[in-house]
């Protein structure tokens, strides 16, 4: 058995570099750089011990969990809606040339628009209530999902289409068992991308226009010049989102792609 075969593999089947020593060196170097920044900035960059204390203080404050729940709900709504719309549109564009001809320029245009523009336009048109933020979020995310899914559907194995037609598999069996499973890696990438963007954009939307949620709390700390609190809130949320991402998508990946590791 080769070293490559023994190496842990990422979802794409590529060997993933994992070295505890490298991780330790990176963390230590980052901590040193941060402390230098603290000294150079004359305290404007909070020291690591201040950040640590702020993390503990925030985690022991029950109010933060309510704020997190609000943000998590917004992320979930935006993520589910954008993924559902993007996957459906990506499938349709990949399977039907007329749909593709109509939507391709639209998607290309939407992709080119920076995310803050969606947020600002949504606030200007719909006001500062929660729905405007969610609409901005969905508009910003859908094009990414569409592009990934559309590309995968277009690149599908046409010979399996023929097999499906010969054996009269039916539309549902074809979509779920042939096409869906074939583009599963792309669906996971699309969902991961959508999730990664969605929580970052939700935090931005909350900072710009919402009175509640982690983003608004970060912005509140910023206005009061509490930089340690600001960084602590961001750190807590980043770690939480990474855990959710790793658990949820890791599970989906094992379920859908487990066969390829046998």
């Amino acid at each position, binding site marked *: 058995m080769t070293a490559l075969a023994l190496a842990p593999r990422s979802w794409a089947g590529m060997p993933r570099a994992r070295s505890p020593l490298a991780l330790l060196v990176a963390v230590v170097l980052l901590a040193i750089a941060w402390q230098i920044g603290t000294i150079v900035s004359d305290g404007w960059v909070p020291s690591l011990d201040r950040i640590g204390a702020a993390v503990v203080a925030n985690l022991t404050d029950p109010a933060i969990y309510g704020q997190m729940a609000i943000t998590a709900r917004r992320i979930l709504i935006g993520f589910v809606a954008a993924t559902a719309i993007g996957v459906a549109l990506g499938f349709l564009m990949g399977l039907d040339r007329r749909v593709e001809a109509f939507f391709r320029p639209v998607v290309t245009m939407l992709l080119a628009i920076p995310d803050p523009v969606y947020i600002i336009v949504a606030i200007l048109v719909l006001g500062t209530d929660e729905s405007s933020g969610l609409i901005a979020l969905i508009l910003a995310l859908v094009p990414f999902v569409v592009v990934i899914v559309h590309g995968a559907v277009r690149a599908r194995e046409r010979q399996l289409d023929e*097999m499906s037609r010969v054996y009269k598999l039916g539309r549902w069996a074809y979509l779920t068992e042939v096409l869906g499973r074939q583009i599963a890696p792309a669906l996971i990438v699309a969902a991961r991308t959508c999730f990664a963007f969605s929580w970052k954009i939700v935090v931005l939307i909350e900072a710009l226009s919402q009175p509640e949620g982690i983003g608004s709390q970060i912005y509140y700390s910023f206005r009061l010049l509490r930089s340690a609190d600001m960084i602590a809130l961001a750190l807590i949320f980043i770690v939480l989102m990474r855990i959710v991402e790793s658990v949820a998508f890791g599970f989906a990946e094992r379920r859908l792609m487990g*066969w390829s590791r*046998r």
Partner: protein
Amino acid sequence: MTSFIEVRDLKVSYDGRREALASVDLHVADREFVAILGPSGCGKSTMLQVLSGLLQPVSGSATIDGTDVTKPADDRPRVGYVFQDHRLLPWRTVEENIELVLAAADIPRTEWDARIDRYLNMLHIGDYRKAWPMQLSGGQRQRVSIARALAIDPAVVLMDEPFSTLDEVTARTMRQQLVELWQASGHAIVFVTHSIREAVFLADRIVILTKGPATVLSEVRIPIARPRVYEDPALTELEASIVASVMREWGFGNGTEPQ
């Protein structure tokens, strides 16, 4: 002899311009094993695509058991198709691949186990029922593909050069097994090949096509009794006579040596 498959004056073209079949007639009796022989690119596979409903002809007719198969319809007869490559779904095990087509063919679930066992055992791959396609050799995958085609109890089995990618020893074994399977199951088989030896060994009758766009050049009934053996001089003699008869037509000079 009544025709189970009947193809008349079949014309097929791609994109309305490139002609694939000029005019082909074909008659296959029930339980008959017919080989379609022709040079590469003459349109042999195109005929199977029409019979399986993958392609619609420009004109002509094609029926299986009296049902027109040139138009999309729900009542088209079940067709088992063995492609040049196995076309198994790599994310489904051997049995799951077969179950997928059994479900699509509305075979009662109570019969699935017995059918899967029967055909996998007949093809000597019963032990691989729970295996993934990637764990099988090329020959084993193609055996699964054959089992999948037969398990739905098709009206006809269409085979498109199914052994052309296998090594000769595996291909010979599989040809032998195919004949045994055909004799046991009694399905009509239309077998496309460009190997004259393979056609002579397998078929009751060979339909020889011209260079593409194809028409029927001639038909040869194989008078050799079964079981046939590869080393039979009668087989070699028949093969040589077919080679001589098609050389000029397929573009190889005066019939003595390829140009």
